[in-house]
């Protein structure tokens, strides 16, 4: 990043704008479970997270206009996504999952009590 020609005021204003955006999104994070789309809570939360992450990457981390770095980031994210897809496909297609101990709901009689008391 060049140090010449820094438009201090404009960049500072940019920082504040992004901050406001992020704060707003955080607020949405908080009210969403009580207000809207409550049945897909997890998805919405992750979506908001992604938007926030994108803003941080682009503005705070100056990814805008960075070709090489941008593609590298994208590539590694795509890899992670592929790992998720395959691993989750695998476990959810495991034929004998319902019979298996690791998915049984209750670990012991004690746990049954504990969750009953919940």
């Amino acid at each position: 990043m060049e140090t010449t020609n820094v438009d201090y005021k404009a960049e500072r204003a940019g920082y504040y704008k992004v901050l406001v955006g992020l704060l707003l999104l955080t607020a949405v994070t908080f009210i969403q479970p009580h207000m809207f789309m409550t049945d897909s809570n997890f998805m919405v939360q992750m979506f908001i997270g992604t938007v926030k992450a994108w803003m941080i990457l682009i503005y705070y981390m100056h990814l805008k206009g960075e070709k090489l770095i941008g593609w590298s980031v994208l590539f590694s994210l795509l890899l992670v996504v592929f790992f998720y897809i395959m691993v989750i496909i695998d476990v959810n297609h495991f034929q004998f999952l319902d019979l298996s101990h690791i998915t049984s709901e209750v670990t012991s009689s004690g746990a049954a009590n504990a969750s009953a008391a919940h």
Partner: protein
Amino acid sequence: MSKTYFDETHCAIGHPKSTFMQWMLTVDHKRIGLMYAAVMFTFFFVAVATALAMRFELFAPGAQFMDGDTFNQAFTLHGVIMIFLFIVPGIPAIFGNIVMPLMIGAKDVSFPRLNWFTFWLYIAGCIIAVSSLWVGEGFADTGWTFYAPYSLNTGTNVIMTLVAAFVLGMASILTGLNFLVTIHRLRAPGMGFFQMPLFVWGIYATAWIQLLATPVVGITLILAILEKYFGIGIFDPSKGGDPVLFEHLFWIYSHPAVYLMILPAFGIMSEIIPTFSRKEIFGYRTIALSSASIAGIGYLVWGHHLFTSGMSDMAKVIFSFLTFFVAIPTGIKFYDWVATMYGGKIVLSTPMLWALGTLITFAIGGLTGVTIAMVGVDIHLQDTYYSVAHFHYAMLGGVAFLLFAGMHYWFPLCFGKMYSEKHAKNAFYLQFIGFNMLWFPMFIAGYLGMPRRYFDYLPEFQIYHQVSFFGAVIFITGLVYMFVTFYKGIKNGEKTTPNPWNATTLEWHLPSAPPPLENHSKVPYVDFRPYEYKHGEPVVKFDYVTMKRID
């Protein structure tokens, strides 16, 4: 006579007087590369000794001189050293350091001090790994795969081995990072990505794997350590944890890791074949791009190690399908290399012998890899000696053989001297024969149902193990022979010119052999392809003082 990198060096801290300290603190990429070689070679002999001990034990059914536990520690030690201390850092740490910056006309890597630090991190990892032999309950007995829950239950010193693997992983990441930045930033002016020598492409593809795959195994090992200490439950079935998840996470790294090993080795092949065919390489671009695509596709196929793990059948089919697509770019490379030989003038010097020998052994290693990529067949062959033979053909007959090829090829560059061609060739023949005798019978034994990691076996398999034993003896004799030849070469080999092979790439256009401290006297301008030959002579010639082209 001008000074070489043996005579002077830059240091990480201060300017020590003693030669010893100058080596310890050096930031010069060539010295660091040599030190890696020396250390690896030392540990390597530990692993070879364990391998020989295992072969002794397997000479006949029944316990010879080891019990089950000792044998289990032996193959773990062998696997861990071979993989984490030797072959994963292997070619990148040695030749990536020594020749890659020379090949792109750089003065050093991008972060020379980080390079120095990485070397010592590597040493720390080695020390932790090896010292766990004597600390606590002895070396881990988990196999190099550390499968949970076995690694969580066993009483041996798994934690130290895990920590060592983690530290070595860090070193590997930092090496990759350093090389990536170097290749992106420090190429000589005019050298685009498609003017880079193919070894640099191999290192580049490998560096991406080191960078992006290693952290996954790093965190997996940390999770295993936390599991052992705090019982977080992730891999513990009695708390709902799933052992299969560990296998996924482990192989997400460890499969790409096998391509991390082989890609720079392929790079060496791509250097040697055109040089000794006196001819420009066939299909430069496809070879370069296939390195990249092997690295890319390599991330997608880890599941082929889980064909019998209790993974869902759906995932088995998908992973089997994807696995075949790594074989295709590899095949393309093979055809390109052979096509390079067409119409050339083939000089069978020792490096070329090793390269051609490897074409044979790795073809066997790779094609048997394709066999076990067939899911129905792998259900029979998984965890038998068939897969052991496959990966020794791939790692020893592929990576280590090409490392040897590279050692012969760049020997004059590193030391300015030449080994005895006659002895080097004899050593090659011994090893080539010994190797095939050692591992080929194991394909048959594995197919007939000889499981791996057995210290005692059913009498039917004895004949295969015995042939294999004699193969090992021949092989290791050849190995020792080779190292003696090298040693003699270093001590009192003939002096050589900077370009004894008539090679074309930039590392041969140096003012002296061994190279001076800051490499090329001036950075050249690159407006040529890496392997240009005309009538068997390199096209590009330099004035080694001004580094201007004079052809």
